[in-house]
């Protein structure tokens, strides 16, 4: 059994202008120790998906489908379990380290708070653990950091502290929501590598949310590509790049600059803009921007199908590429 199982997860926001279908029919499994990337552009529903898991959605949101963690229904956790669930079983790293630390509290205090609440550790024990955590996230001079305030640390350091805070109670699953978007490019790589190493070292599952396929390419076991609140493609990481099935995934890849391209090569942007999620989805959300789209794509909704190459590789498209294409042509 997978550690985390999402089955047809749906999130709908009830707004004064009518419902907004932010996430629809997202099914995903995350096994113990596995790294899963959720990739999509703004408004693709990737953040809403994890927010629903963390119980962070506003009251106007209606959740459909199920999400289980280790067999437990996340949306209906027993009260005593809930108290020590978030931050212990599942922890989260936020996008912006500038706002995820309290500016008037020392690093040490912020690091130890969670442990003392969840594990009733003594002050000395939690301080020792805080030092250990700062070492773990490779912060130089950790003893000094404990007494410092967030403004005395650089952005990258702060994100390391935020990661250390998330790791405080040994979570089995860490969710990182665009953990490097707010950081300098040079620091981004360090933080991503750190997360990758920590995952291996601590045997912890990781969900890495990003809009950049390049970020998840070498750091995940599995990738879920989202668009318009739906899964477009879900596959082992290599398959996503080697045997791309969905035109959207292909388009995303083509919009990443490649160092080996000859000078002057133009990037291939995806034309148009993301779909309006207030409209009841009845067709492929990507159809208006897709160069392969036919009438069928506009009139009906493609369901997730497996590729012939792998059971693990699914896509939602009438006109798939790669190995899936050969089979559908053969069928015709």
């Amino acid at each position, binding site marked *: 059994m997978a550690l985390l199982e999402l089955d047809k997860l749906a999130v709908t926001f009830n707004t004064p202008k009518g419902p907004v279908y932010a996430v629809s029919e997202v099914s995903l499994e995350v096994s113990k120790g596995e790294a899963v990337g959720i990739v999509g552009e703004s408004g693709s529903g990737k953040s809403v998906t994890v927010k629903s898991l963390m119980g962070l959605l506003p009251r106007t949101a209606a959740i459909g489908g199920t999400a289980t963690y280790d067999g437990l229904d996340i949306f209906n956790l027993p009260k005593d379990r809930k108290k020590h669930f978030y931050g212990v079983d599942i922890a989260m790293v936020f996008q912006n380290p500038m706002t995820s630390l309290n500016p008037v*509290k020392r690093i040490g205090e912020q690091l130890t708070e*969670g442990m003392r*609440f969840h594990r009733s550790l003594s002050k000395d024990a939690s301080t020792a653990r805080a030092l250990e955590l700062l070492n773990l996230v*490779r912060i130089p001079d950790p003893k000094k950091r404990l007494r410092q*305030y967030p403004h005395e640390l650089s952005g990258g350091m702060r994100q390391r502290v935020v990661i250390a805070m998330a790791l405080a109670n040994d979570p089995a699953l860490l969710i990182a929501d665009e953990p490097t978007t707010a950081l300098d490019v040079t620091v981004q790589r360090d933080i991503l590598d750190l997360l990758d190493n920590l995952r291996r*070292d601590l045997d912890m599952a990781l969900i890495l949310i990003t809009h950049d396929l390049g970020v998840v390419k070498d750091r995940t076991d599995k990738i879920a590509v989202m668009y318009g609140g739906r899964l477009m493609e879900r596959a082992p990481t290599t398959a996503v790049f080697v045997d791309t099935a969905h035109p959207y995934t292909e388009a995303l890849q083509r919009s990443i600059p490649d160092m080996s391209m000859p000078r002057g090569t133009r990037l291939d942007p995806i034309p148009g803009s993301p779909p309006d999620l207030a409209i009841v989805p009845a067709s492929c959300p990507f159809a208006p921007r897709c160069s392969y789209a036919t009438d069928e794509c506009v009139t009906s909704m493609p369901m997730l199908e497996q590729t012939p190459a792998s059971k693990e590789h699914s896509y939602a498209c009438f006109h798939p590429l790669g190995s899936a294409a050969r089979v559908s042509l053969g069928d015709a």
Partner: protein
Amino acid sequence: MAELTPDVVAAAPEEPVLPDPPSIAKQLGLGFWISVGFLGLIVALAVLAPVLPIADPNETAVGGKFESPNPGLWFGADSTGRDVLALTIWGARISLLVGFLAIMIGFLVGGTLGLVSGYFRGVFDKIVSFVFVTLLSFPALILAILITTLLGRTVFWISLSLGILAIAPVGRLARAQTLVFAERDFVTAARILGASDKRIIMKELLPNVVIPMSALALLGMGIAIVAEGTLAFLGISVSGGLSWGKQIFEAGSSARNLQDGPHAALFPIGVVFLTVLSLNYAGDRIREVFDAKELAL
């Protein structure tokens, strides 16, 4: 699992060793400490008034009528020969107490309302904001006169009437600050970790909100002291007691008195001026020093 080897792990680059930033005490500056020193002195004198070797402030003919300041009578004497210095020290008791109580009421009520409404938002927030705006639009002096004449001219009621006036400004500041911080991820993180609303407000938000609030509180205390003086000038300050406002009012009640013994009014005016200046300056410095930290974020 791959073994974690140090060389594949990206360590954060070593930061250059910077000299320690100047301590907070140093950053606040000499002016701040002089202000605080002066305020401390005034408070100490006010508290110790009964045991200080000064004349009874109500005793007349301690000096001659409008006796000028001299080594024996530092602040001189007023129209009935009372010791102006003793009057000023005794007057500080009520003036400071009223100023302090008023701002405490504003701080506690306004701060609590601002924090809670800014954090929970919704209908409660709308109601509180409406009350704040109503309070702000109400003519301050009229409200103070209304309360003191209706309920009595005791220290408590005067403080309360001035305190009510302080609720809206303090509350609005607290609410605005809360709005800024409540949306930040550290609050979300605390919520994820299972912190209750009460804990988030007290432990995460309050420490952030209290700094600008204390700066405003010092400024507000100055305003309250002057406001008490205004009430005294209108003849509706604490009945029976002495206060700076009352003292100034009595010494300056006629052009004749001011002409014959200007020192009887000018000394308490000077002390009020220096007290309010000190409060303002200290408040400003606190805001400047701690705001700079906020900017660095």
